């Protein structure tokens, strides 16, 4: 199926109006210069050949060279992917934490205030444009209150960090660079919270519905009737059965996160994968666009596989 994806993307972007070559060559270029550039980028070969050459390269890890920068697409990607992963993963974790706890509480106190509040929060969250929320937060927490750092990039000015994994948090932990850790976390705070608010709605609702079902179920009532204490009751007899459907939903949400991350990276000047891809899109940088789409699609498929595994772990009745 990934082959289908790659074919689709290859064909689609060749249909792009706008000649990539023209964005690269200087304005004074003659027709001959343009032809030469086209030849250099391999765009004069038949499409099928182009596709073959490209996929062969991909299988070897080579995604070609960016039309704009001339640099290796693979290298540029690897530099930027960790930043985006850091952002989206933290956002997902935060959202999961809130969704699970609030969802369970909402179910336990169904019909009372926490329940209503959770519905309102979920509704508002899904109606908010994340880019606007990000800007609002910047206004409040940076401009008005001065709590947040300058919304530019992942680390403050003057902080140096040794790159190991590419993730600012992990690297600063690994090198025990506490200044960098503080800076990284403070820069992560606003974008992560923004993204988390927007995605927690559907997950909170899923947990709440699942938990309400479990609370009515005979298996829960039996545990109550046998006097199982509340801590154990809520952990193993309420939470665990309620969360079975969550991994699949979280995978779907992660997809939405990837899209939202592009906008948040734009707002917070995050220098991540999304921003890079956006530039590629705007400038018709074919190799960049192709790489972006293939990587995202592959990642999305892997995420769903991971979700299936988690689902099977949570619910022993499911066979992989």
């Amino acid at each position, binding site marked *: 199926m990934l082959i289908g994806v790659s074919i689709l993307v290859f064909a689609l*972007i060749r249909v792009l109006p706008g000649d990539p070559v023209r964005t690269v060559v200087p304005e004074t270029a003659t027709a001959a210069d343009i032809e030469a550039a086209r030849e250099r980028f391999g765009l004069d070969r038949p499409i099928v050949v182009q596709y073959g050459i490209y996929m062969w390269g991909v299988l070897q890890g080579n995604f070609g060279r960016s039309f704009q920068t001339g640099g290796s697409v693979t290298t540029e990607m690897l530099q930027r992917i960790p930043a985006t992963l850091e952002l989206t993963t933290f956002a997902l974790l935060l959202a999961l934490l809130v969704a699970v706890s609030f969802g369970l509480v909402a179910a336990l106190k169904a019909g009372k205030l926490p329940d209503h509040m959770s519905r309102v929060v979920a*509704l508002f969250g899904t109606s908010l*444009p994340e880019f606007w929320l990000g800007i609002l937060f910047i*206004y409040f927490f940076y401009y008005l209150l001065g709590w947040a750092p300058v919304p530019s990039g992942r680390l403050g000015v003057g902080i140096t960090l040794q790159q190991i994994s590419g993730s600012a948090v992990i690297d600063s932990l690994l090198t025990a660079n506490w200044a960098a850790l503080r800076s990284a976390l403070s820069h992560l705070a606003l974008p992560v919270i923004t993204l988390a608010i927007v995605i927690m709605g559907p997950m909170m609702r899923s947990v709440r519905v699942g938990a309400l079902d479990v609370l009515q179920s005979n298996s829960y009532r039996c545990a109550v009737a046998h006097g199982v204490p509340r801590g154990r009751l809520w952990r193993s007899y309420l939470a665990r059965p309620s969360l079975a459907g969550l991994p699949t939903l979280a995978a779907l949400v992660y*997809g939405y996160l990837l899209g939202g991350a592009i906008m948040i990276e734009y707002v917070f000047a995050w220098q991540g994968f999304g921003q890079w891809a956006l530039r590629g899109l705007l400038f018709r940088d074919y190799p960049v666009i192709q790489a972006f789409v293939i990587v995202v699609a592959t990642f999305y498929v892997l995420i769903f596989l991971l979700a299936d595994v988690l689902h099977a772990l949570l619910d022993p009745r499911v066979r992989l």
Partner: protein
Amino acid sequence: MAEITPLSDALAIPLTRRKRFRLAQSKLMIAGIVILVLVVLMAVFAPLLSPWGPEEIDFDNILAPPSPTHLMGTDRNGMDIWSRIAHGARIDITIALLAVSIAVLIGGTIGAITGFIGGWFDEITMRITDIFQAFPSFVLALAVAAVLGPGVRNLAIVVAIVNIPPYIRLMRSEVIAVRERSFVEAARCAGLGQGEILFGQVVPNCLNPILVIAPLNCGWAILTVAGLSFLGLGVPIPTAEWGSMISTGAGDVVAGRWWTSVFPGLALFLTVLSFNLTGEGLRDLFARK
């Protein structure tokens, strides 16, 4: 546990907490519909409601805060924000409604046919749908928007295309569930043609989930249009549209001129909220039935 009361009292019927909760829910849905109507009215009567043209520049009042002449202030180009919001409503809502309608029609039709016929046609259609759904929706919208280029008409096409696969899936699964039912068999025996059966008998019974999803989809569509415009892939620059207004004003907000982005965003948020409330309300309505 149970409350202990003398039985005679017990037989009276009090208004329980549950009932009050339900009333609150329908109030929310009504609020959603009201807001929606207001926004649509604002869009329809935009020219009447705007003291300034949507792209009219007031050179004396660049980046001016809200005042009696400019109810919501002006942006960095000197354009009146309130007027742009009113006109922006036209674009955002029109595109969303148009795109979702197209997606429902095309996606629904394809889904109905492929669900009804099955076979290799079904296989191929689902494979293609899978490929489209291998991407997160916004990423797909981004890619398609980049292909088509900016413009209002293209935006509508983008949103429509991205939303077709879910409706194909939805309609298909509904049709598959309904096509085995006895009244379909009866219609067949009565000599009705395939097309008549499909669109006359089966499809009308499959519409409920679509009616619930469509408003929620509209909400998402508006967010996508705004998002794409925010990134520069949507409407061309000076056009009044909520997303691109937020983008234009972003830099100014950080410097303290909050009205440039806050008002358009508020309009966006309230409109999407109203769609979501309506969709939620419909869902509850159908669930209760």
